[in-house]
């Protein structure tokens, strides 16, 4: 396999799969447009063709040179490389960091922002390595109140309230408090 690693093979396969899937789906809207000769598929298919060429070029480059960067490239990230070996514990923690925001987003509709956000804040602080409970609680409270102050009290921004009781009731309680506060001004 030349200098190709398994992850690089997967990476190349992913690009080819994206090209194939998007090309296949382009037949779903392959209808002529009276005023435009190339139709709705013209532009996406040209982009897909160029993407295919670039993916082949990328694969050939990786085959010959592995993951070496080209000299003279500007603004290259200094991120942790994909090839870094990680322990199961590190992988688990990173998985937690990636999954927590996603879980938070999915919970926004039923639970609402007002109830879910303090738990989310505490979870992220914990996943980033902070273990002192007192710090976590104080900072969570501070960030939560700061955001409520800015977006709810000051800017009256509409945030997700949830649609499941008792979470919805909690959101309603916060909003009632806010309207009472507004009336005091």
């Amino acid at each position: 396999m030349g200098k190709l690693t398994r992850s690089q093979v997967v990476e190349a396969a992913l690009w080819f799969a994206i090209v194939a899937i998007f090309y296949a789906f382009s037949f779903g809207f392959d209808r002529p447009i009276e005023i435009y000769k190339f139709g709705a598929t013209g532009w996406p298919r040209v982009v897909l063709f160029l993407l295919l060429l670039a993916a082949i070029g990328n694969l050939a480059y990786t085959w010959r040179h592995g993951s070496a960067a080209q000299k003279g490239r500007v603004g290259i990230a200094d991120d942790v490389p994909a090839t870094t070996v990680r322990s199961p514990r590190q992988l688990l923690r990173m998985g937690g960091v990636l999954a927590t925001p996603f879980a938070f987003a999915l919970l926004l509709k039923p639970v609402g922002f007002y109830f879910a956000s303090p738990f989310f804040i505490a979870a992220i602080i914990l996943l980033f390595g902070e273990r002192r409970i007192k710090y976590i609680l104080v900072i969570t409270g501070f960030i939560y109140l700061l955001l409520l102050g800015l977006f709810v009290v000051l800017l009256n921004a509409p945030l997700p309230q949830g649609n499941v009781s008792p979470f919805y009731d909690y959101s309603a309680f916060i909003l009632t408090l806010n309207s009472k506060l507004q009336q005091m001004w």
Partner: protein
Amino acid sequence: MLENFLAGSQALFGDPFTIGIFVFGVLGGMLFGAIPGVSMLTLAAILLPFTANLEPAQGVMLFAVIYCTGTYGGAITAILFNIPGAPENAPTAFDGYPMTQQGKSGKAVGAAVLCSAIGGVASALVMMAATEPLAQWAIRNIGPPEIFALVFFGLAVASSVGARTVWKGWISVLLGLMIATIGQDPVGGINRYNFGFSDLAAGIAFVPAILGFFAVSEIFVQADKRTSGQFKSPKLGMSFPTIFELWAHKIAVVRSILVGFFCGILPGIGATLAAFMGYGEAVRWSRNRKEFGKGKLEGVISSETANNAATGAAIIPLLALGLPGGALTAMMVAVFQMHDLEPGPLVFYNSPDLIWVVFAAMFYANLSILVIGLLETKTILYLLKIPFPFLAPMILLLAAIGSYIGRGLVLDVVVMFAAGIIGFLLRRSGYSIPGLVLGIILGKIGEQNFAQGMQMVHYDLLEYFSRPICSILILLGILTLLSGVYKALKPSRSLSSANWTGSSAGQK
């Protein structure tokens, strides 16, 4: 012009409420630009409904001021945290963040303050002096072929920066173009790639995608560095750039003003492409190209001058032709419409007072960047002292709020976090997030103008080369691509010693 400017200034500062709105816009734009995770677009989206209660001049002026100061504010997060406040600040991070890592954050932020103010003031002056003639010139000389050619050139430049190889640079830009095809096609309105989801008919929402790719992916990258033990604390540097350091870059400043203004004046292009092209031209003309991306002050100067130079220019097509140049100017159209006004040539005759209040406000807003920026810079640098575990949840929540507020859809928050994960994986593999984002932003504009251009020239592509501006831009784009191909095919001489070790400091 002077009389009109003075009349505009008098209207601006003669009414305490209007002054209050101006100050709110200046501070709000800077603050929302400088808070990692939200941007001036978040503030603008929140404020849009409230502008219905303001006078038309006050509403439009507020958005114009937020546009000027927010564009500068986004540079702060780009420099300090590698999180561009807006796409137009992405090239600022290329050199700004390495400067922070080297303990030169003060120099980088100081240069951003000064150059944003210079670019913005120069742009505002030209805008006041020449909006009508420039709009007339643009109407006569700039058509869809020229705009497509500029998009092509801009994407060629974007593909040459930010990725580990030229192939990955192209893949990044092409992936962005592909994402931009999701939703209705710009000619016939046919739904493309909605995969059965009706919400995708309107395409991928712009703000959540940007927040995900820039802000959320950066949080994941920082988490990755911490879990793998490769995290290095940024150093706090308080020293500002000296007069001599700035004077040494005077040519870069002038060049970026010209590039920024040219990009800004073209309908639909705006400050993002201006910043990329300002940065790209700085690299092209530099004798020390290898230093770019590793903490070179000229990189910050070029990008920040160009994007602020585009702010004034972007108002020209908006006011003169009714064509917005970006997301924020599009919201300004909404402000006009809320007050039963239509931006366009008639505004100059029907509402001259409004025009000159806006012009004066933009001029003073850019001056405010200099004054407030220099005063607050040292305070802002202390943001670096906040431990990242405490900053991370705040950034993530602000980004979640920012993406939700635009359309009130939880789906947008999900899209944002999905974009964050994709962005994180792409960055780890050496792809360019700024290139990807520019592809998303310019994809629809490029396709629409290509289609209109082809209809204009009766599908004869060679006709594009009979138009001077168009042919120059296409040739420059082709040259940029060919130089990339040349480097890619000569890899034996052009391999970097940095082989996945992260030794070359730089940005996404």
